[in-house]
């Protein structure tokens, strides 16, 4: 489903050039559960943003479902992000003044669903993450774990091909973190494709395959034990 090859990303900081990624090759298939690991600054987020079509590589090839992403315009990338990718962020990134339901409906607005369809789908997604009774709450009325569940419902609601989570438990206590990982487990069992970025071994252990990055290069890529 995803195929990248020789992907390089450079950041120019004044006179300095930072090599965030140095020729990465990776293949990801449907219904995989993948963890990307590595120390801080190793390029995990950069790779994740690339896979999520938030960013385009400086050099290299990226095929998403057979489409060449590197050559796409901003709006085409927005379209792919909307239909094919569900993001889960470390800081949840919910809209503070909107209810859980409105937050989950957001991707559906950009996809052009009618108000009724949006509502129905958003309710379904929230129930799927166990928040059927918190739909009209605003983010500041929810616990961290609940907020992340809303974010996951939002990532799921447009039935994307893949869910990308960058340090989804980074802002949660370990017990809540485990709950969130159990939710991912459950989503994986439902047939979703999931990529989780983390630097915690405990978290990575939930995945079926672990890719380790170091200094912008893939150090290892093997099934989890």
């Amino acid at each position: 489903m995803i195929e990248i090859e020789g992907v390089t990303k450079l950041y120019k900081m004044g006179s300095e050039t930072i090599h965030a990624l140095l020729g990465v090759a990776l293949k990801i298939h449907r219904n995989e559960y993948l963890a990307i690991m590595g120390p801080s600054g190793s390029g995990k987020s950069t790779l994740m943003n690339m896979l999520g079509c938030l960013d385009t590589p400086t050099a290299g090839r990226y095929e998403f479902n057979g489409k060449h992403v590197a050559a796409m315009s901003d709006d085409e990338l927005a379209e792919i992000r909307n239909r094919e990718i569900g993001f889960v962020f470390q800081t949840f990134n919910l809209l503070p003044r909107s209810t859980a339901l409105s937050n989950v409906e957001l991707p559906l607005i950009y996809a052009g669903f009618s108000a009724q369809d949006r509502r129905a789908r958003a309710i379904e997604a929230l129930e799927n993450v166990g928040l059927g009774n918190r739909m009209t709450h605003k983010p500041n009325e929810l616990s961290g774990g609940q907020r992340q569940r809303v974010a996951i419902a939002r990532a799921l609601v447009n039935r994307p091909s893949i869910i990308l989570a960058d340090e989804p438990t980074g802002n949660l206590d370990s017990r809540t973190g485990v709950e969130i990982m159990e939710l991912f487990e459950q989503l994986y069992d439902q047939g979703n494709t999931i990529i989780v970025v983390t630097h915690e071994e405990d978290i990575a252990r939930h995945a079926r395959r672990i890719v380790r990055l170091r200094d912008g290069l893939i150090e290892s890529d093997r099934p989890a034990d």
Partner: protein
Amino acid sequence: MKRIIYEINESFRIAFAQIRANKMRSVLTALGVIIGIVAVTLMGTAISGIDRGFQNSLAMLGDDVLYVQKWPWGPVEDWWNYQNRPIIRPESAERLNQIIEDTPGSLLEIAAPVVARGASVKAGENQVNGVAVFGTTGNYARMMSAEFKEGRLFNEAEAASGRQVCVLGFDVAEALFATTSPIDQMVLIRGQPFMVIGVLAKQGSFLGLFSFDSQAIMPLNAYRKYFGVHANSAQLRVKVRDKNRMDEAKEELIGAMRRVRGQLPGERDSFSINQQQAFREQLDPIKQGIALAGLFITGLSLFVGAIGIMNITFVSVKERTKEIGTRKALGARRRTILLQFLIEAVSICLIGGAVGLSLTFGLCLLLQATMPSLPVVFSFSLVIVSMVVAVVTGVVSGFAPAWGASRLDPVDALRYE
């Protein structure tokens, strides 16, 4: 297509939530727009009020009547030239009518002299002061624009014999005869008895300055008897056959008047021909003045308002950079973000516009209540104009920050703290 409607809907929802969350800031930002809208609508109201007032007032002057007078309507620089003109005598009207009659295919129909002065009118215990008393001939009936409430004007025979009859303006009749009909009643005009044979219908005032309803009309010959000296200086009113050929008629009248006055070729006219058109032309600079002042204030306050809104939108974009990143990650296109912030700016302007309109509306009601004679016109087109002005201001001022927001790199926006 459906999608963009949902996006616009959502943008309005967000915009109003945003404004509600930042009430004080939004109100202060909208102030410039509020002032601008008040200025533009007040200006519009004033101009259309003046127009309306003039339309009404000018209708009473008659659009097919030329006025022969010593002075032109409107300002003159070489006033001494006019001051030295010989007076226009009422008898000139007869000469003029003779010439008109002798001219085949004349564009002029009939002339009537009008002399005037102020006087008090009394009936029993009641008295009205400062009534404009006119003396004229029976021909005046042919060029009167006022309607009769009851009765009639004196006829040619009555006028010629100088019978002491009169027609009263509406207000005069009201004041003197509250309960009975004034017809066939006697009134004292400057102490002389006159029988009322007609009452004019209500006409209103000339721009609220003086009333057409405070007048009395009597035969010129009767007027002469009592107001002797004043009866020598008249104006001549000349009815034109075809009001679409006013200019030609005016030329003909100038020629005829020169003959009446015995003027030599090459001599300057010793009279002026006035018509309501002259008033309109005089009005134009006033209207332009109001429009200019209004536009200046409007422009200035909208400019200040626009800068305020631009600034607040930049702040809003900055504050919500991370939100913009999130929205982009969820599939918002550039257009979506652009629309969102444009709509936010436009919403503030629309609220400002609505507040400004209400203020103007209230002001108009207040004016109407305190000064009913002022022709205040608050028209629906003002609502449209101010809404358009508000939207344009919003779009213009919101565009730069909204454009910037739409171009933000999603990754940079998401990393923004």
